[in-house]
């Protein structure tokens, strides 16, 4: 972001960066930066809170009054990234003949559909569509249970993209399943990896692929670096 600020400024456009990593902003010294110690992925701080977002923008645009730069100012609010656990009820088992994760993925489809209809868009679709998620989860179950990932016919052929699609499917469905306030930072990540069958399967499949000696590019981005079974 800071590099782009320099590029745009050189082209004659005044810039303000919302900084998320303070040390990097100090290093690259963009002309104007408002450092926001907010959860990563939430540069305006709080979803569904226009008043707070306007406060961030007001602090950012105020930097345009500075006569010279670089200018680096901290937003006065710090938002911690520890989230409270969400209340997100999964449907009961429906088909006991299926692996639990596959049954679960099928079970949340209607919740996913309702959210996709409401939003008019979905981030599922890098390599598979929503209808293909249960089969993709079945492939990961097989790998987690010992199948060779090279012959498991993973849909899409890209583990990172596939795991993004599956996680997006779950996190978007969760927006229809949660009760209470909007989930906090990483709360749905916690829910997915700690409380769903499929989240655990993804971590187990990642471990199995890593232990098979595969290159890190194959398994590393299947889940956040800090996540483990």
């Amino acid at each position, binding site marked *: 972001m800071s590099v782009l600020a*320099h590029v745009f400024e050189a082209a004659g456009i005044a810039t303000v960066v919302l900084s998320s990593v303070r*040390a990097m902003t100090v290093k690259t010294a963009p002309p104007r930066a408002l450092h926001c110690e907010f959860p990563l992925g939430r540069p305006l701080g709080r979803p569904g809170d226009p008043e707070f977002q306007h406060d961030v923008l007001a602090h950012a645009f105020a930097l345009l009054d500075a006569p010279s*730069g670089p200018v680096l100012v901290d937003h006065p609010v710090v938002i911690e990234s520890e989230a409270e656990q969400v209340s997100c009820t999964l449907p009961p088992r429906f088909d006991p003949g299926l692996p639990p994760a596959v049954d679960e993925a099928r079970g949340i489809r209607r919740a996913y559909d309702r959210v996709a209809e409401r939003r008019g868009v979905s981030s599922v679709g890098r390599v598979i569509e929503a209808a293909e998620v249960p089969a993709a989860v079945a492939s990961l179950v097989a790998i987690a249970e010992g199948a060779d990932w090279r012959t498991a016919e993973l849909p899409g052929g890209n583990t990172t993209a596939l795991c993004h699609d599956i996680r997006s499917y779950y996190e978007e469905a969760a927006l229809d399943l949660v009760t209470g306030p909007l989930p906090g930072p990483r709360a749905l990540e916690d829910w997915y990896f700690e409380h769903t069958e499929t989240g655990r399967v993804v971590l187990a499949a990642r471990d199995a692929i890593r232990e098979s000696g595969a290159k890190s590019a194959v398994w590393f981005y299947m889940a956040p670096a800090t996540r483990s079974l």
Partner: protein
Amino acid sequence: MNGDQAMRAHSSSLPGPTFDSPAFVTPATLASSTVAIVTSAALHTPEANAFDGGDTSYRLIDRSRRDLILGHWSPNFDRSAFAMDLNVVYPIDRLEELAARGVIGAVAPRHVSFAGNQPDDLSTVRFDSGPAAAAALRADGVDVVLLTPV
């Protein structure tokens, strides 16, 4: 160490380019400025080409679009907030409100999206795609850019 602390520690350790004679543009008043958003969230519309891993190109997003996909490849940040409210990454509705209130002069007709996960030397965004995106915004009369990361 939670996920954000780990990512901030990692990002802080990365090399960052320095600029010897950085430009510093003094804008006209905000109330007369046309404002655009430039984000590194790899946002794209459903019909536009998705971003590849390591993609150095950019997408122009029409001001009217809200059906945007978060195409960033990293699993290491909170991706759920964008699905709840795109303004937490791409504050387009907030800019429209500021324009309606006369705080900013106008909302730019097009906005820009890059992928944050760039090759280490950043040479393409510095010397090719970045200047091209800036030229596109200049052609639209943009005076001020707000840059938002994920």
